[in-house]
Each structure stands twice: as C-alpha cells, then as structure tokens.
C-alpha cells in the first residue's frame, strides 16, 4: 500500500439549521501524518464523517488523489481507499477478534483463508494476536481501540482516519501506538489524519496540524507554529488546558 493525497475544499454541513462545519479547506499530502485538533464539539468528527461518506457535505468537495469521494456511500469511500476508526469504538461484539479484522480484510481479499491469514498478520503487528480467539466484547478499552485500528488497516487503505485512538490509553500504551503508527507510515507511506486530544501524541506524530473551532478552521501549521498561535491559545485557554 502507499499513501494518497487528501484534499478538502470548502466543505460545510448543517444539521437542522445548526451549522456544524463551515467552509473548511485543507490538504494532507500523500504519505504525511497530519492532525485535526480543536475543542469538543468543534466539528472534527463531522469532518471525518464527511470524508468517510457517512454525511454528504452541503457544500464543497472531498478528493482523494484528485478523485472526488464526497457524496459516495461509506463502503464505496472505503473502496476508494479510506479506512476509519470510530471515536466511540464499534467492534463486532459477538465475533472473535480475528473475525473482526477478517471482515475488513475480505474487502480486498474475497477468499476467506487469505483474508484470515492477512488479518492474523495485522493482529501480530498490533499485539493483539494472543487474543485473536477472544470475543471482541471481552476486550478492554485500549484493546478495543487497537482492534479498531487493525480492522481499518485490514481494508488496505491509502488514507487512515483515526478518531481519538489514544483516548483512555496509559502513557506507555500511547508511546507504543505512536511508535507503531510512525513505523507503519515510514514502511508503507500510508497517509494518516488523526483527531486527537492527547497533545503528546499529536506533537510526536503530526508534521502539520489543522485547528478547528465552532466548525471553522482557525489555524494550520507545524506543531511549533501551532503551539505559538494566538487564536489557538485563546480557544484552548478559554476552555481548558490541553492534556
């Protein structure tokens, strides 16, 4: 797999007249790791849902390697090369860990044995291989977060959308996940966009950060630039100290 370039061009979305996201544009270059940050309720997950096809944007467009994906159904967006995790994890509870990831792998490997072998390989990389026969509902929260990542990766995406996969993890677990993502990115060139509140992970991973507040983009830049950005500081100090 290799990474794809993501372009958001003036996308917006309202719910029953309430403006959730307005005129947000940014690019994620192929092979980059970028972060999307902002206070709770700023519209980050709504942006993810527009990229992943859950919502159709009211305005603007989303392109992957120049091809328009906004307005496609989620399964077709996945087909185009976008893998995503859910902020509130959504494992297939009754299925085993291995079967969870196998479902993802089946997308590009229609034969069940191939898909299962590929899924096992991904579980190995994420350290879930020992638990592969356990039911997904018996996993702890950090393991469920890893399962989300594994299942998304199994679809062999060119762009991976990670929605707060570090939340609830202990500092050592965060470091493990950060290392895994860095290694994955440098080995495969997979493009990654992450929503994250854990600043330590954001600073370690992201080459570029986009900040949204009240549904609008208020800043974009390198971690160093964002750390000094007045508007960003205002937003965060107005709410709470970032973790």
């Amino acid at each position: 797999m290799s990474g794809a370039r993501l372009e958001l061009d003036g996308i917006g979305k309202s719910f029953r007249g309430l403006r959730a996201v307005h005129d947000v544009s940014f690019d994620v270059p192929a092979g980059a790791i970028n972060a999307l940050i902002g206070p709770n309720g700023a519209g980050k997950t709504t942006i993810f849902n527009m990229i992943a096809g859950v919502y159709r944007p009211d305005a603007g467009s989303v392109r992957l390697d120049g091809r328009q994906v906004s307005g496609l159904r989620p399964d077709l967006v996945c087909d185009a090369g976008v893998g995503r995790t859910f902020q509130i994890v959504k494992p297939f509870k009754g299925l085993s860990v291995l079967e969870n990831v196998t479902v993802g792998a089946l997308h590009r490997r229609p034969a069940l044995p191939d898909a299962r072998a590929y899924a096992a390989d991904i579980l190995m990389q994420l350290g879930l291989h020992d638990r592969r026969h356990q039911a997904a509902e018996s996993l702890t929260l950090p393991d469920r977060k890893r399962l989300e990542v594994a299942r998304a990766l199994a679809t062999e995406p060119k762009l991976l959308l990670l929605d707060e996969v570090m939340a609830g993890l202990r500092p050592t677990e965060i470091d493990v996940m950060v290392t895994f993502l860095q290694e994955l990115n440098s080995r495969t060139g997979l493009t990654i966009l992450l929503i994250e509140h854990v600043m330590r992970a954001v600073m370690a991973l992201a080459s570029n950060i986009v900040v949204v507040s009240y549904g609008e983009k208020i800043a974009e830049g390198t971690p160093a630039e964002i750390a000094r950005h007045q508007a960003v500081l205002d937003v965060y100090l107005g709410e709470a100290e970032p973790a």
Partner: protein
Amino acid sequence: MSLLARLIGGVPARSLWCLGVLLVLLLVAPTLLGKYGLSVLILVLYFAFVGQAWNIMMGFAGQLSLGHALYAGVGGYIAAGLFFHYGIGPWAGVFVAVAAAVAAGSIVGYLGFRFSLAGVYFALLTIAFSEFTRIAFDHWGWAGGSGGLFLKVDATSDILNLRGGPLLFYYVILALAAGTFVLCRALLESRLGRYWLAIREDPEAAQAVGVPVLRCKMIAIMISAALTALAGVWNAFYYNNLFPETAFAMGRSIEFTLAPIIGGLGTLFGPIVGAVVLTGLGEIFTDLSEVFHISGLKQIFYGLALLVIVMYRPAGVWPWIADRFGFGEKRR
C-alpha cells in the same frame, strides 16, 4: 473437491462422524419408524428446514422478520394454483412460486432497508405486508378466496406431480433440509456470510470497512424468501389445502421463528435442534392433554416450556449442548 474441503474445513472429526451417522439414520428412518413416527419426523424436518431459511435473515444478517408466512403463502398458493387450474406440476410451478416469493421479499426488503428500518420497526413492516396479502388473498377468486383452495388427494405415487404418500414427502423434505444445511454452511464460510455477521453486529462499522450493506441485506431476504417459498410449496402439496387465514397467519410466521430462536440463533444446528425440541414437546403435550380432555392445555404446557427455555437458556439450547459435549459450534 476444494469446495468439499472448504465445507468441512475446521470441523472436528467427531462432529463429521456424528453428522454422517445422523444422515444415514435419517435415510433409513422410514424402515425403522411406524406411520406415526414418520409423520412426527416429517414435521421436525419441515420446521428445521423453514427455521434454517428464517435463520439466514435473523441469525446471520440480523434482520427480524415476523412476516415470513408471506413467502410460504405466496409460494404455496402459486404452485398449488398452477396445478389446480392448469395442471402445471409443482416441479415446474416451483420456479414461478420461488420467483414470486423472491419478488415479494425484494419489495419488503427494499422498502424496509432503503429507509433504514431496523428491529421492531422492520418486523412490523413484514407483519403488515403479510397481513395485507392475507386480506388480498381472502378476496382473490383465482386462489379460491376465503373458502380456500383444495388439491385432489391422490395416494397413487406420481412423483412428477409430487403426488404420493408420506414416504415421498419425507424424502423431499429431508433433501430440502439437508441441502439447506450444506448451503448455510457454505454461505457462512464465504465473504457474504461474514459480511452478514458484521451487519448483524454493527451495520455502521460494517459499511465503514467496505461492506455493501443494502446489497447484502437484499441477498439475505431473497435467499430466505426463496427457501421459505419452497417450504410453502411442499406444505401445500403435503396437506392438499390452503386457506388465507392459515397460509398468511401471523401465527404461522411466529411458528417459523421458534425453532431457530429456541435452538440457537445464528448457529447451523440451532434450527434443527429447536425443531426437534419443539415438535417433541408438542407431541408429548398433545398426548398429555388427551389424557385430561381439556382443550388449550397443550398450548399452556407449550407456553410454559417456551418460558422456561427463554428464561434459562436465552442463547438457545444448541450452544449449551454443543458446549457440554464438545461439538464446538458456538453462535457466530
């Protein structure tokens, strides 16, 4: 060969042995059983077959249908009507019957799934369509209206027209039940089957990993409707009469759901075990209530048995048996 290998791959040897012995026993059963025993076994196989058909939709794909009598009724009526009016035998008529049931299933499915109805709401839609059709058949002259449609009872064996004694119907329903068992195993061990399980567990997450949810649900309802229509055709020619009041009754739809729920939803053996338990209980209670001469007593025993099963074995009887005796099939 590779298909066979895939079908039996990962199944413990002792389970395969048990299956083989069971099949042989079923094949020779008519020589071992009397008339009564055979009629009971026919009932077991019928409920196992139609239960497997329903299990594909609910147990595999997670879509609760309480209107499956629609497909059995449409299938049975069409095959019986073609034979009755035009002398077209059921082996040909069954194609029309199945096609009509699949069409009906597609309409119910498309409307329900297109508008994302799930759970109880979808179940009510299926009931509404089934009831709607029942009333329509009550007023449809070709199908005999509320007076019913009767096939001439004919004990001379005429396999071409599916006319004959219980033995013929026994082997037909055995073939259907056994064939569907293999089909279910093949489906579960395929991409489609895994996609169904994913949809059952979480449709949104399934779609995010590339599962075409609407298409998979449509295939589930179409396969399920087709198999249920076969059961309806078999049933119409076995009993030789059809009434809208019974063919499309909500009670019939509910009857279809009991064996898989009691046996264990989503398992291969659940519907079969459930059919054995239910039919067995039914027969025992019939005998018991005949001793007391009180109508309704049989159903009270039946209701109590259901209550006990759902309270103490909510996941079904089969997963519990499988666990205890090491057959190793769990709900997937």
